[in-house]
């Protein structure tokens, strides 16, 4: 027993070092798989309030540009309303999806897995797996929800896969992110017989029931080689500017439960 005390006294620093490092690595590993990443510390409590406060301050600095974007969007919506005025009251299409506006309170773009925190939560009807879009295009999917905040896995995440469609020829492909620049992504699973042109537009396919169809994702920047002979890959420029993200809309699918009940569980 005495020897044990001597040992601990002599190597107390090394023992402390090993214990703390193991503790840290345990915490990192626990937060590693994206669905376990609770982001509790960012979403609620002191840190949540802190991020909200800094977001409040910095919002003032962007009011002018933000107003421009909103008025542009307004004009677009008004012009659409103008053309479709005749059929407006018979349109049933709109009530499939409801859009919940939200503010970005924390955003990252330079990590390997990037997450966004928004200021709407369970109370406002946000649920995990809902899609998030902005005026520019697709942003990501809701990951975790607390009462007043939600964490969103942005497209800039190695776990993110979005099902997309070429506007020109209706072929479907998947968009992922290859840990590089926040402006560019990677289109995978393009059938090799398909001729890809620079500037081709990709929109959401609408198959995932998180996003409505025809939301802009990005445009092709160039070919990026083959993927096991069957499929091609291409470089994509996101239409969303992730570095200036402030206002987003959470997409709520009103028939999600109904669609899910049809899905065959394997």
């Amino acid at each position, binding site marked *: 027993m005495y020897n044990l005390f001597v040992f601990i006294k002599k190597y107390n620093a090394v023992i402390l070092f090993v214990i703390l490092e193991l503790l840290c690595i345990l915490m990192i590993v626990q937060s590693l798989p994206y669905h376990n990443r609770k982001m509790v510390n960012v979403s609620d409590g002191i840190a949540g309030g802190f991020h909200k406060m800094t977001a409040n301050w910095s919002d003032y600095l962007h009011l002018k540009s933000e107003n421009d974007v909103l008025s542009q969007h307004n004009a677009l919506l008004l012009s659409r309303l103008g053309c479709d005025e005749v059929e407006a009251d018979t349109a049933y299409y709109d009530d499939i999806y409801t859009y919940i506006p939200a503010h970005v309170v924390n955003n990252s773009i330079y990590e*390997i897995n990037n997450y966004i925190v928004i200021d709407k939560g369970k109370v406002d009807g946000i649920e995990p797996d809902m899609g998030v879009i902005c005026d520019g295009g697709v942003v990501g999917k809701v990951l975790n929800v607390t009462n007043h905040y939600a964490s969103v896995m942005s497209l800039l995440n190695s776990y993110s896969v979005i099902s997309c469609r070429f506007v020109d020829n209706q072929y479907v492909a998947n968009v992922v992110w290859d840990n*590089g620049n926040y402006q560019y992504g990677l289109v995978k699973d393009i059938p090799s017989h398909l001729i890809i042109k620079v500037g081709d537009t990709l929109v959401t396919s609408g198959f995932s029931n998180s996003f409505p169809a025809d939301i802009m994702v990005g445009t092709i920047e160039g070919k990026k080689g083959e993927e096991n002979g069957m499929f091609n890959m291409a470089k994509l420029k996101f239409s969303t500017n992730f570095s200036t993200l402030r206002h987003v809309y959470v997409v709520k699918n009103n028939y999600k439960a109904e669609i899910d009940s049809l899905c065959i569980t394997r």
Partner: protein
Amino acid sequence: MYNTLIRNIFWFLILLILQIFVFDNIRFGNYIHPYVYVLFVMILPFETTRAQLILAGFLMGMSVDIFSGTPGLNAAATVFMAFMRPVIIGLTTRKSDIEDKNSPTVTEMGLQWFVVYGLLLILLHNLVLFWLEAFSIRLLGIVIIETIISVPISFVIILLIIYIFKPIKK
């Protein structure tokens, strides 16, 4: 005694605020990640025991982690750096050099010594941090590029902070 304690608390708060308010928000490019809070562990007095250094490093790293939503990441790197600090001091000084000195700062040890000491410690910290962040061998290239670019920039910013908050001589 009180003086040292107050000075350390001051540095802790200043560096925490600078890190989470300024340097976590302003990033200068894809590979540049300045971490300035490591200065806190670097300038603790010579007489600080190794266990105290490690605890201080853990506290500092964990505080940054809480605000950046990365549990354990900064803490692990800072604990490792704190553990290695006595080794680096042993490598870069002779025992007789530091007998009458209080703490490893620029004012007491000179700029030339501090450049070697600071760069080595930041290198250790950044290597561990970027490695744990990537968590795979596949991204080794990115880890090395990030480290090579970030270390000198972190160090220059730390030097600027030191000169900005330098006490005025009476």
